[in-house]
């Protein structure tokens, strides 16, 4: 496992660096265009006092991370079917769930590193304002938050495998991007559409993080962490039910 992670990182170091830089480019794009139209002193949130750039850094890094996980997990089963790897996995003594977990672990390490690099402004605020524990808590929030993201990616993967085409990947990434609840406050959305971010884990990750670093209190603030844990449990339960159904159906026959 250690060797795989090492090889993964060395081989893809340029890609990792690029993703970090591009996330800042994206954040900068939003900040520049937003400032050009709305002024640089505009307040991003009606309910918290947070530096706009840090707000955007948190939002952008959550969105980039989500889209990366969706893309990687979403194509996993479909590409395994096409390449014949799934049949080899099913025939092996290792369970499919073990394989999925083992695949997810390097991605989680990778994702955490990317998050720390891309949300550095926010983590710096947490560190300087409240100390190491709060900074560590912010990283722990993203680590917990990745679990429902992986489940979401897995659900997408099943859908793509059933449809036999990865076309809905772009559509789902557009959906996550727009309705993540991480890039802007919910209040900006038309009322009818506000339910959408509430169904996605990205909203709760963003709320937990922003609540943590914008709190006026110096004591350990839990903010949106309890809600994030509930969402994680809910997604985990849905994921395990669907996984059991899926693994039964896939052993019934793998269609290329």
């Amino acid at each position, binding site marked *: 496992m250690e060797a795989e992670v090492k090889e993964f990182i060395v081989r893809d170091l340029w890609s990792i660096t690029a993703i970090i830089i591009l996330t800042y*480019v994206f954040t900068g794009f939003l900040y520049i265009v937003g400032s050009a*139209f709305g002024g640089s002193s505009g307040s991003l949130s009606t309910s918290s006092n947070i530096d706009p750039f840090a707000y955007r850094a948190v939002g952008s890094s959550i969105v980039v991370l989500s889209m990366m996980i969706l893309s990687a997990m979403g194509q996993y089963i479909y590409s395994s079917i096409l390449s014949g790897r799934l049949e080899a996995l099913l025939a092996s003594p290792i369970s499919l769930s073990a394989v999925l977990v083992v695949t997810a672990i390097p991605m989680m390490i990778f994702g955490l590193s990317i998050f720390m690099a891309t949300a550095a402004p926010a983590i710096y605020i947490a560190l300087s304002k409240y100390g190491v524990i709060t900074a560590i808590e912010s990283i722990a929030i993203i680590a917990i938050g990745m679990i429902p993201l992986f489940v979401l990616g897995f659900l997408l993967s099943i859908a793509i495998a059933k449809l036999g085409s990865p076309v809905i990947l772009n559509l789902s990434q557009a959906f996550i991007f727009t309705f993540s609840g991480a890039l802007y406050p919910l209040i*900006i959305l038309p009322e009818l559409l506000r339910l959408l971010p509430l169904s996605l884990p990205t909203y709760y990750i963003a709320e937990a993080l922003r609540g943590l670093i914008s709190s006026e209190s110096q004591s350990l603030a839990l903010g949106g962490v309890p809600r994030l844990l509930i969402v994680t449990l809910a997604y985990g339960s849905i994921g395990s039910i669907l996984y059991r159904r899926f693994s039964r159906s896939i052993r019934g026959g793998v269609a290329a």
Partner: protein
Amino acid sequence: MVLLRSTILRSFSADLWRGVLVNFRGVDPWVEMISSPIWVLGLVLAIASQNPSILRDPITVKDICWSIVVFSMISDKLWIVGHMLDREKRSGVLENILVSNIPLSIHTLSPIIVSMLWSLASLGIILITVFPILGVNPAPIDPVLTAIGYILSDIVAAGIAMLYAPAVIKLRRPWIFTTFFQFTLPLISGIIPQSYVPPEIRGVIALNPLSYPVEILRRGATGSSYIDVQIGEAFMISIAGIAILYMIGMLSLIIARRMIIKRGV
């Protein structure tokens, strides 16, 4: 000469026919197209969140929407036209194209038209979905000027992508550069008011051939003016920009073909 011209025309029409079939056949392309307005909505809201009160100003929101339409147009060109040769190299098609006598420059022209059709279809969907959701009237102030500006912008953006295409084949991870340009090129193409831009960047915007058709598009669509230039002047600069861009683009593709043949596909 007549035979050469008829072969080129025939090849061009074959590529156009092929491009339309490949990019518009079946359900998949339409599902992809539905994602365009969702991306646009997300970007507009993320931008507006800098100062949410501007969402109550339909003129500003309309300006932002058209800026993102231009962003979307540039993205389409970079990914569809810019990566065309790379896609064909990976699928083995490029070898078959090289072994025929069709020049790469002609082969690239028809995907430009196809990508313009794609952007136009996306624009239609955006106008009837995103604009009403945000409470904005999609009707442009001057439809003729808007159409002229849109078409010229699309042609220039495609020309820039055509210049980029030969580089994409050589890069190991072209998606990195394309994503970078996707966000930076619109910023220097007049999508934000010049008053916000530092003087050095204003110089870059003035030199960018894409800035002028975008200005024509904006004045027609919203009546706003971001660059200090007369419409007639902007039009002439756009035409000159197109001529220069495409000449350089064709030349770069001729050179690219020679380099590919020297080093191998």
